[in-house]
């Protein structure tokens, strides 16, 4: 199974890099499609960890819903500006230097440490144990996330509402 892990993680990294740094295309749609590939490879990693639920959610929610939204936005806004922009040499150099530095730290840390001693419990990633954990140990954070979603929803409605109509509508309703 080890080689599968290496294949999937290499593919994840490669596709992830192609999302932000694609030498062949500056088209945002291409980037979004590579993001889909990244996410699919990541769900492969989850499968290797026997976290089948997370793998399925990854595909359904991210590859399915979120990326479709991305594509909608990109196509609706018709972003051409980005394509015309050239790579800035200095920026590319700085970015590459920062990435190389971080990668060096990561590689030295990972190679200097041994593999995890504790192996995962066999069924830790399946739906039932996950649900049990969510509703026992992590019930409080789980509930806070619901509050978070409420805030996000209220915020979306507020920010996309056209400002001036609101008050007049209310007054009209009153007079009626």
């Amino acid at each position, binding site marked *: 199974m080890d080689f599968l892990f290496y294949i999937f993680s290499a593919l994840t990294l490669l596709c992830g890099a192609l999302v932000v740094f694609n030498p062949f295309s500056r088209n945002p749609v291409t980037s979004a499609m590579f993001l889909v590939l990244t996410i699919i490879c990541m769900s492969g990693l989850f499968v290797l960890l026997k976290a089948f639920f997370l793998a399925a959610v990854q595909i359904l929610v991210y590859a399915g819903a979120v990326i479709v939204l991305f594509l909608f936005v990109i196509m609706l806004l018709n972003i051409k500006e980005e394509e015309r922009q050239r790579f800035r040499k200095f920026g590319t150099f700085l970015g590459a230097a920062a990435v190389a530095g971080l990668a060096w730290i990561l590689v030295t840390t990972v190679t200097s440490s041994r593999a*995890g001693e504790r192996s995962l419990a066999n069924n830790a990633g399946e739906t039932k144990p996950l649900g049990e954990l969510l509703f026992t140990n992590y019930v409080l954070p789980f509930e806070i996330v619901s*509050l*978070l979603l409420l805030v996000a929803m209220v915020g979306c409605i507020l*920010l996309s509402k056209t*400002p001036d109509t609101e008050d007049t509508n209310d007054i009209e309703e009153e007079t009626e």
Partner: protein
Amino acid sequence: MNLSLISLEIGVALLGVLVLLAGLWTPPHRRSALGFCTALGLTVLLALLVKQGMAIETLTDSSGGFVRDGLAVFFKALFLLAGILVTLLTMGFANRLRTGGAEVYALNCFALCGMLFAASANSFVMLFVAIELITITFYVLTSLQSHRLRSLEAGIKYLILGAAASAVMVFGIALIYGSAHTLQFNLIADGLAAGHMKQLLLFQLGALLLLAGLAFKIAAVPFQIWAPDVYQGAPAPVTAFLAIGSKAAGFVLLLRVLYTAFQVQPDGPRLLEPTAMFSVMAAATIIFGSLCALRQRNLKRLLGYASIASAGYVLLGIVALNERGAAAVLVYLAGYLFAVIAAFTVISILTPEDEDEDLSILANLHKRSPLMALTLTLAVASLAGIPPLAGFLGKFLLLRAVIEPAATFPWLVAVALLGVVASLYYYFGIIREIFWGTGQWWTEKAPETAAIKLADSQVVVLVVCVLGMLAVGLYPQPILEIANAAVQGLGL
């Protein structure tokens, strides 16, 4: 799950939902009643909290992710007080918001709820969820004046930078979990103490990324880049809440992570070199904030840079790595609460609808509204650290924490003192503008002289802030005792 443990948070969240629902049926001209009800509800909750007292005994919930000790109660009281004052302040400002006149109170409650959870966070899951609740609410609040381009710009900037910071932080948490096999602060500390940590280097990398995420919340150099733009663009009441609430939440989490989870001590195991790291960070933050504030003429932006500088002073209390430093952080934040809210109240009243908050709007303030002139002068003097106000006490304690046991970092103290001198310059620029300002001298327009009529809620906020600044400064005994008791549970 012991529900009585989180009754306060449930109360605030329920209040938010109720206000949200009530807003649907409230006609626009009755909206300030909603704000009044919110403030009343929060006051009742604060009274209940104070009545329970500073619980010295530590209570945790069954999973250990939520803790209620002296530190948590101190910060909960701080956040609730800030929430009440900001709600009252919003009441006077709500007519400037073209959308969300009712929802803004609910969003304030939700942000407050996140802060209350942050004060009690004892595991990295809780930390992350609480921070996200605070930050996402502030993304919305920042861009609430969506007809103003600056407000939208600030919202977008905050959203993008904040999301990047969250991503870095979550990566850090993943690395910590990978090496420690637990997310709970106490268990991580146990693992570190017992030397079980096999991948110490990986753990340190995770800790570093996590601290970067927290440094973004408190706007410390080099993660300060968002602060001036967001402070300037956000509606004034939101800026006030951001300046005290979001920042204090960052500090309480920083204290807990450093002392409870990582157990950093001056003579402890060498983890991350915390003293060196934080002293460099504090010095850079003070220098950056002070230098940028010197020539700034936009009032909100000026206070944004000043808040960066003050984050640097608070970091001094963390450099010290002892109980005294932690207590100084608490005292400073308590004084900072009143000063910052007072300043932003005045700004929110004075700023004209579609203009920038240039310093010239302050001209003649002492004739137009003596109460506002007095409050702003006191607030600014307190921020600058003039005795006998609250800010002096805080800065004094923070400096003493670095100096007293042994002056480990003479250069750091020198930088801090230089920062204080610079702050005198830019803060007194504000005072000069109030009493001797000539308005917009470049247009030769005479400054406004018409008296300003204050709403009742605004008078209440101003008076509470003045009393708070004077009380903390003149009679510091109670707050010192409370702060000292609160940091006992940190495990220093």
